[in-house]
């Protein structure tokens, strides 16, 4: 046995894990992308943990959603399976290697979403007990109306589960989405204190938010491994400069 199973908070890995949370349209992905650019230019080894889990698990999730086979418990479990795969393949190995791992959405998404679906808050927290505790978890706090304006119009049809249509909140998918997201926000707000999430006022300008994010992240980076890539970046910019 390779050291047994580590539970939440017990991992001692040399890398750093930065995660962003918030409802759709909160601008969290934009902020994470900007953070990534900055970390790379600072010379850190950055690894983006995408939701590219193994095809097998992914296919079950996709099929279950398409055929509307999922109940609150199986919805929760299949996503936890997917997340476990992501943890075992895309989070723990790069953290062991000393990388700064970035994750767009994390366990708090599952906690909010599953509890709104009626799953026990205690149970879902236990279920994800194997997750690595993030170095910093940002919560992009957005009023529902602001987020709705950013999303609707900008995207294609809302999806069945994403809009919480399985909860029978409304026959109208947009209205269902609104009520569902409103409840998700309530759950996020409860988690800010519970998990020490760093709340960022996502109604401010992108630049202001990014400056705050970078300041907070840099405090957590002391002693983190850097590569020599920075020198290459510098050389490249020098080269460009000399040509001008």
């Amino acid at each position, binding site marked *: 046995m390779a050291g047994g199973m580590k539970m939440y908070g017990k991992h001692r890995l040399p890398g750093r894990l930065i995660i962003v949370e918030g409802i759709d349209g909160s601008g969290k992905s934009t902020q994470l992308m900007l953070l990534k650019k900055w970390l790379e230019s600072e010379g850190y080894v950055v690894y983006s943990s995408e939701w590219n889990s*193994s095809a097998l698990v992914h296919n079950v999730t996709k099929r279950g959603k398409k055929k509307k086979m999922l109940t609150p418990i199986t919805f929760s479990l299949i996503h936890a399976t997917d997340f476990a795969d992501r943890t075992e393949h895309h989070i723990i190995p790069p953290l062991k290697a000393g990388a700064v791992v970035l994750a767009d959405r994390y366990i708090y998404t599952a906690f909010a979403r599953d509890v709104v679906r009626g799953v026990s808050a205690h*149970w879902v927290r236990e279920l994800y007990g194997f997750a690595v505790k993030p170095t910093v978890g940002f919560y992009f706090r957005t009023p529902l109306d602001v987020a709705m304006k950013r999303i609707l119009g900008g995207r294609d049809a809302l999806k069945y589960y994403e809009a919480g249509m399985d909860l029978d909140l409304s026959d109208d998918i947009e209205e269902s989405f609104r009520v569902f997201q409103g409840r998700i926000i309530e759950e996020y707000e409860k988690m800010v204190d519970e998990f020490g999430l760093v709340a960022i006022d996502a109604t401010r300008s992108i630049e202001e938010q990014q400056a705050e994010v970078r300041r907070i992240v840099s405090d957590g980076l002391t002693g983190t491994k850097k590569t020599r890539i920075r020198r290459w970046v510098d050389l490249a910019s020098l080269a460009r400069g000399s040509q001008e």
Partner: protein
Amino acid sequence: MGRFSFFGEGLAGIDLDELKGKLIVLEGTDGVGRSTHIGLLKPYLEHHGHAVLHTGMTRSALAGKRLKQAKEGHTLGGITMSLFYATDFADRLENEIIPALRAGFIVLTDRYIYSLMARAIVRGSDPEWLREVYSFALKPDAIFYLRVKIDDLVTRVLQSSGFDYWESGMDMHMGEDMYESFVRYQKWLLAEFDKMVENYGFEIVDASRSVEEVFEDLRVRVDRVVARNGY
């Protein structure tokens, strides 16, 4: 008051009072004859007028097929596999077992959460965590633990299908060859099952006897459970 209860908080929206059937579990390690005995018990019970649902692992509509593929490719990590099995189990609990119990069936299940937990524990999962994960499960009416000693098990497996990759715990690199690995892995599993006997109220059935003797023993025990008035 209904007869059934969950291990923990359980599933939302299930009225336990509506569950009229019986949930009977056959547990035990690989090759002890669980499926043979379920194959004998089912027609026996049906002969006596009971409707029977026979279910087992990796048979869910949701995840069963992919789970089997995952085992063949063995690329998934230990925690992922544990949760994949839990998903398969939950799907069967909600869509097969509970509806059958509601309809008054006798549900005979080939393995239950105990095998899933034992296999996950030997692969490094935390026992406390597993207990929490499976707290949505229904407590069965009876758990018959078909128990054998390791020597009997080796003979039995050699006489039937031979050593299998997973049943030998080959994913854990426990021995130089299938035989060594099988013995170590199955000993460990047996030890985990033995630990569960008291905690979960397993009824031990000595499975080293002949099929006829084991069946007769099981039949008497099953009759008792079926006759038991639940309230």
